[in-house]
């Protein structure tokens, strides 16, 4: 039974390597290519999460949303277009700068920023302050994930929402295999699903398709930096990645489809 499995330990062990390799510095280096992807995709995965709350009849104009590890705004921007205010928690300065620039370009003045890691945010100062607290594709930052989820519940007066890769885009898997990069096959989604259920949080589950578009330059930069997390990039790697992206792009845009698992619940 699930009761016999220590999901918290499984989680902490499963994400340890990714956590070690993906520092704030790494994300500062990824700010440009990641922002390019979010913009070129028109925040596709964030918009799909927004639609979920709309379809459920829950989204309210008066909402104040907290987006943990916002990056350049894939969640923050679509929500800010529809609700009263969004607060983004983002410690990587270049990501935060990209977010604010993106928001300005969209004439959004209802976004504010907490320039800290979520772990450093004083939750007592924001107790029950938000209608929706979202953390998308970023839970790997938290070895003590249940503690961090409980902190999210502390600042939410409405809902909490965690989004994860349900399955990686097939393209990405094939590419990494060719480059000899093994990112492991730790399944964050099913682990966090079981961890929450074991802890008495029984989340609703949605599986949502998304499409990511990015320029060839962004795709090349993203893949190169990902390889550099594991080993130095060789000249032949550079040529291979460039050709790979070029060949698979259409009109200068490289596109991948994926699915994410969205776990969300009403906070008691």
């Amino acid at each position, binding site marked *: 039974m699930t009761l016999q499995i220590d999901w918290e330990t499984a989680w902490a062990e499963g994400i340890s390597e990714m956590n070690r390799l993906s520092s704030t510095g790494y994300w500062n280096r990824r700010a440009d290519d990641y922002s390019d992807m979010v913009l070129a995709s028109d925040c596709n995965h964030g918009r799909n999460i927004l639609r979920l709350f709309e379809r459920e009849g829950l989204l309210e104009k008066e909402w104040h949303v907290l987006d943990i590890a916002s990056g350049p705004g894939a969640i923050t921007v679509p929500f800010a277009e529809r609700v009263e205010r969004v607060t983004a928690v983002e410690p990587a300065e270049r990501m935060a700068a990209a977010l604010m620039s993106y928001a300005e370009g969209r004439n959004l003045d209802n976004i504010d920023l907490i320039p800290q890691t979520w772990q450093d945010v004083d939750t007592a100062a924001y107790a029950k302050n938000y209608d929706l607290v979202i953390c998308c594709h970023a839970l790997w930052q938290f070895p003590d994930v249940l503690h961090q989820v409980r902190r999210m519940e502390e600042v939410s007066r409405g809902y909490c929402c965690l989004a994860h*890769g*349900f399955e990686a885009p097939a393209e990405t898997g094939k590419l990494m295999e060719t480059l000899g990069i093994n*990112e492991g096959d730790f399944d964050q989604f099913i682990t966090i699903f079981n961890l929450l259920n074991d802890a008495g949080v029984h989340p609703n*589950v949605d599986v949502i398709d998304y499409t990511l578009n990015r320029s060839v330059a962004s795709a090349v930069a993203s893949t190169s930096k990902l390889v550099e997390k594991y080993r130095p990039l060789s000249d032949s790697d550079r040529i291979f990645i460039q050709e790979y992206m070029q060949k698979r792009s259409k009109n200068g845009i490289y596109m991948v489809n994926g699915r*994410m698992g969205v776990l969300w619940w009403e906070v008691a």
Partner: protein
Amino acid sequence: MTDNSLISDIDWIRLWEDSYDARSGIMRRDYVLDDWSERAEDYSESRKTNQYEFGESVYETLKRHGVVSPHARVLEVGSGPGTFVIPFARRVDYVTAVEPAEGMIRMIHQNAAEAGVKNYDIIPKLWQDVNITELRGQYDLTITSTVIWMFRDIMAQVRRMEEVTGGYCCVVGGLGTGQTFEAELWKEIMGDTPRPQYPEYPLIYNLLYMQGRVPQVRIIDYTSMRTPENMLRMYRVFYSIYTEITPEVEETIREALYRDSGEGPCVRKYRSAVVWWDPAVRRKELKGIV
């Protein structure tokens, strides 16, 4: 590289079978159809609480997500007193109930007549005995609730459910409620004998996921209300599976019910997971980080 052996090595089917066997191990006899006929009245009262609140809530959930439509033909596996027959048949094209217990079948007819529902039929068999050859692809939704714990060969039965639908499958499974009444009563009657588990959710989610399905979930809350006499009838059947129902056992149940609810109806709050999936959609194995 992360070591995922802990999770990828979990044999969910084995866990399901172990749970089934552990329960069988403490049973003095197996359930028979007469047990379910005996349960027809209390089960019906429970399902009819707040105008079929449970079935209505499941219907609304599935409708909101496009799983069921007015044109849908629905097959319910183990209908009991008409758990989904009545709420669904009012809004869909047709419902077929698979239900083997005579008492439950009578109750479906009675409840359907009361609700003015005529667009249904009943296959009076155990689901495991239904020949699905002629049913293959005939329905748009196969649905079941509070039944799958009876299937030791869970995936074989799930696959049969999938074969008869050209649309979706749905399993509604109960969640622990944190209520202590059941555990305390079990201890009073059975002492230190481990209490049998009926773990449908989230175990079924893991099973489906690991077998490549893409299930979605909504958690629903609902109320069940039953007279003390119907509660006693339910507990009499339940405990007869595990011990002899002596006058002392019956008195223990009566007293516990009286302590809990006095002479009025017993009101219970329950929570269930509505799990649905499209059998034609399969998950690709997760490799690499998104």
